[in-house]
C-alpha cells in the first residue's frame, strides 16, 4: 500500500523541517512527565510513555481519564502545563500542529464538507506544495488503496460512515506521516462495520508500518487492535502492557475490572513459597495462587482476580438440599487435598443465555456472587443448570491473579 521507506525529510514551504535519521534508540515518541490542568481539574498528572516506531499503541480508559487530552497534546492542538513531548529525541512542544509530521483521524472524520473527496485527500499535499501532477497521481493511488477509486468527485455528505472513515484514513496517510493519531475512529460505526474496520486497521498498520496511537474507551477494541495498551484513569497511566498480559495479569483492581469481565474475591495473604501464594479469602477459606512473580507481605490485604471463563462449573457432588458445605466457610478442603485446584460450593443465582455461551452467576457461601461462563459446546440444545441448582465452582491455581489493595 503506502510506501514509507526512504522518507528522509519532509519539505514544507521550501524549508526542511524534519530530518529523520532512521536511527531511533527505542522510542519514536517520548512523553515525559506531561501534565495538563483545566482550572482545578487535573486532566493529566505527570504522564510518561515511550512509544516505539511501528507500534500500534492504544490509550485506553473511561471517559474523562485524560486520553483524548494526551492525544491533543501530541497533535499540537493544546499545550501541556509541564513536561515534554519528544519525537525522535527532539522536543515538539514549540512546533505548531501544521509542522508536526503526524496526522489525526478524528472521531467524526472531519472531512471538509465543501471539498470533494479528491480535494480532501489532496489538501495535505497542496499544503505541502506538492506539484499538481504529483497530487493527481497520489490522490488516485490513495483512493485505490482504500478501495474507493470512483468516489473522488463526490462530496463527503454522499458517503456512508465506513466510506468516510476510509477517506479520512486516505487523507491522513497520503503524505506519509511518521505517526497516525486515531481518536475513537470507530465509535460512530455500527457493531458489524466496526469489527470489519478493526480488521482493516490491523492490516493497514501492518502493511504501512506507520506508528499508530489509538484512543478508545472500548476495552475489547483495544485488546483486538493493539501491540501495547496504556490503561489510564484520572489523568494517570495505571498500567502499560501487551493485551494478553493486561488481561491475564492485571496490576490493580481498576485494570482487572476495566479490562474484560472479572470477579474480585477479597482476602489476605497468609503465606508465600516462591511463586505460590496462599490467600485466605474472606468467608471462603484458603486458596493457592501460583505463578506469581512478585513478593507479597504476609497479612497484606489483596484481591484474587478471576476471569469468568477460567472458572469451571459442575453439578454439585453433594446430595441436593443436604449440603452443609455452604455454611462451612472454615472447611479447609481445598488445601487438604492439594491438586492445585480450588473448589467451592454454591448455587445458581441467575443465568443469562447468550447463544454461544451461558453466564451463570453463582452465590458462594460468603454471599459473594461469582460470574462463570459455560460455552454451549454440547450438541443439541444446551441447558445445563437451572436457577437454584447446587453447583461446584472450581479453578486451577494459575487461573487467577493477585492484586494488592
Amino acid at each position, binding site marked *: 500500500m503506502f510506501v514509507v521507506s526512504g522518507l528522509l525529510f519532509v519539505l*514544507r514551504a521550501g524549508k526542511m523541517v524534519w530530518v529523520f535519521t532512521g536511527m531511533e534508540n527505542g522510542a519514536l515518541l517520548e512523553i515525559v512527565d506531561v501534565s495538563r490542568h483545566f482550572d482545578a481539574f487535573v486532566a493529566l498528572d505527570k504522564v510518561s510513555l515511550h512509544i516505539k516506531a511501528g507500534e500500534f499503541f492504544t490509550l485506553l480508559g473511561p471517559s474523562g481519564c485524560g486520553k483524548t487530552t494526551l492525544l491533543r497534546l501530541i*497533535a*499540537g*492542538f493544546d499545550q501541556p502545563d509541564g513536561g515534554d513531548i519528544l519525537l525522535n529525541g527532539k522536543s515538539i512542544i514549540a512546533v*505548531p*500542529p*501544521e*509542522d508536526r509530521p*503526524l*496526522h*489525526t483521524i*478524528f*472521531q*467524526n472524520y*472531519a472531512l*471538509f*464538507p*465543501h471539498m470533494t473527496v479528491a480535494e480532501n485527500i489532496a*489538501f*495535505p499535499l497542496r*499544503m*505541502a506544495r506538492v506539484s499538481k501532477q504529483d497530487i493527481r497521481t497520489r490522490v488516485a493511488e490513495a483512493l485505490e488503496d482504500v478501495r474507493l477509486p470512483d468516489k473522488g468527485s463526490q462530496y463527503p455528505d454522499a458517503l456512508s460512515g465506513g466510506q468516510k472513515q476510509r477517506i479520512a484514513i486516505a*487523507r*491522513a496517510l497520503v*503524505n506519509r506521516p511518521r505517526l497516525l493519531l486515531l481518536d475513537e475512529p470507530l465509535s460512530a460505526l455500527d457493531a458489524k462495520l466496526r469489527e470489519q474496520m478493526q480488521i482493516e486497521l490491523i492490516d493497514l498498520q501492518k502493511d504501512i508500518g506507520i506508528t499508530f496511537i489509538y484512543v478508545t474507551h472500548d476495552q475489547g477494541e483495544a485488546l483486538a487492535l493493539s501491540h501495547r495498551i496504556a490503561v489510564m484513569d484520572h489523568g494517570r497511566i495505571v498500567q502499560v502492557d501487551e493485551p494478553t498480559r493486561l488481561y491475564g495479569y492485571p496490576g490493580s483492581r481498576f485494570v482487572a475490572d476495566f479490562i474484560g469481565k472479572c470477579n474480585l474475591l477479597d482476602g489476605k495473604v497468609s503465606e508465600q513459597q516462591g511463586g505460590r501464594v496462599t490467600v485466605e479469602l474472606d468467608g471462603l477459606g484458603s486458596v493457592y495462587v501460583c505463578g506469581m512473580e512478585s513478593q507479597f507481605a504476609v497479612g497484606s490485604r489483596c484481591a484474587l482476580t478471576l476471569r469468568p471463563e477460567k472458572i469451571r462449573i459442575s453439578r454439585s457432588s453433594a446430595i441436593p438440599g443436604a449440603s452443609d458445605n455452604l455454611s462451612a466457610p472454615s472447611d479447609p478442603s481445598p488445601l487438604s487435598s492439594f491438586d492445585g485446584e480450588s473448589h467451592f460450593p454454591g448455587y445458581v443465582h441467575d443465568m443469562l443465555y447468550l447463544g454461544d455461551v451461558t453466564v451463570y452467576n453463582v452465590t458462594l457461601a460468603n454471599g459473594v456472587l461469582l460470574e462463570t461462563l459455560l460455552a454451549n459446546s454440547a450438541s443439541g440444545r444446551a441447558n445445563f443448570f437451572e436457577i437454584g441448582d447446587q453447583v461446584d465452582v472450581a479453578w486451577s491455581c494459575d487461573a487467577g491473579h493477585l492484586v494488592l489493595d
Partner: protein
Amino acid sequence: MMARKNLLLAVSAALVYLFLYLPLVIVVVFSFNDSKLNAEWVGFTWKWYGKLLYNQEMLTAAMNSLIIASVSAGIATILGTLAGIAMHQYRLRLLQMLVLAPIAMPEILMGVSLLVLFIMVNMTLGLISIMLAHITFCIGFVALAVQARISSLDPALIEAARDLGATPWQCFREITLPLLMPGILAGALMAFTLSIDDFVITFFTAGVGSSTLPLQIYSMVKIAVTPEVNAVSTLLMLVTLVVITVASRLSPAIFRGE
C-alpha cells in the same frame, strides 16, 4: 369540534395577516391605478412607473440609496464577519454586548448621537456621514449571522486543517472562510436591505443634496400620497423582498433568532 377549532384558527390567522399585509397590498394595487387619487380603482396602468424614470430627484435619491447601501453593506460585512469570528472565539460577554448593542438601541437615539458626533468633529453631512451611520448599525446584524454559522461548524474541521499542514492563515482562507460564506452573504444582504430601507438614522445624518429613497418618499408624502410614491414604494418593497428571501435561503439560522 375539531373542525370548528380549525375554522376559528383559520379566521383569526386570516385577520392577523390582513392587518399586516392589507396596507402593503393597497400601496401595490394603487401603484397600478390609472388615477391621481388613491380613492377608487379606475383601470390598470404602468404609467406611474414610467414617470419615475423622468423624475430627476427620485433617480438621484435612488442612486444615493444604492451607493450607500452597497458601500455600507460591504464595509459592515467585513467588520461584522471579523466581529462574529471574534465573538465565537473569545466568548467575552462584553465583546458580545458592544457588537450587538446598536441593534437593540432605539434608532432615534443612534440618529441623534451620531448627528452630535458629526457636528462635534465638524464633518459635512452627506453620503459619507450616512454611510458611517449605516455601517454602525449593520455590523451587529452581520456579526450575528456569521456567529450563527460558526457555532454550527464542527470545530474539528479547523483542527483537521492545521493537522494536515495548513498554517492559521491557510486554514482561514481554505476552510473557515468558504464554510462561513453562506452566513457572510446572508449578513451582507441583511445589511443591504437595512441600509436601503433606513429612514430615522438617515434623516439625522443626511445633508443637503444627499437625500436617499426613503427620505425622498417622505418629502413627497408631506404634500400628498401620489401614485408615484406608491410605485417607488412597491419597487423598494420588491427589492427588499428578493434580497431577504435570498438571505434566508443562505442562512436559515439567523431568522430563527439564534
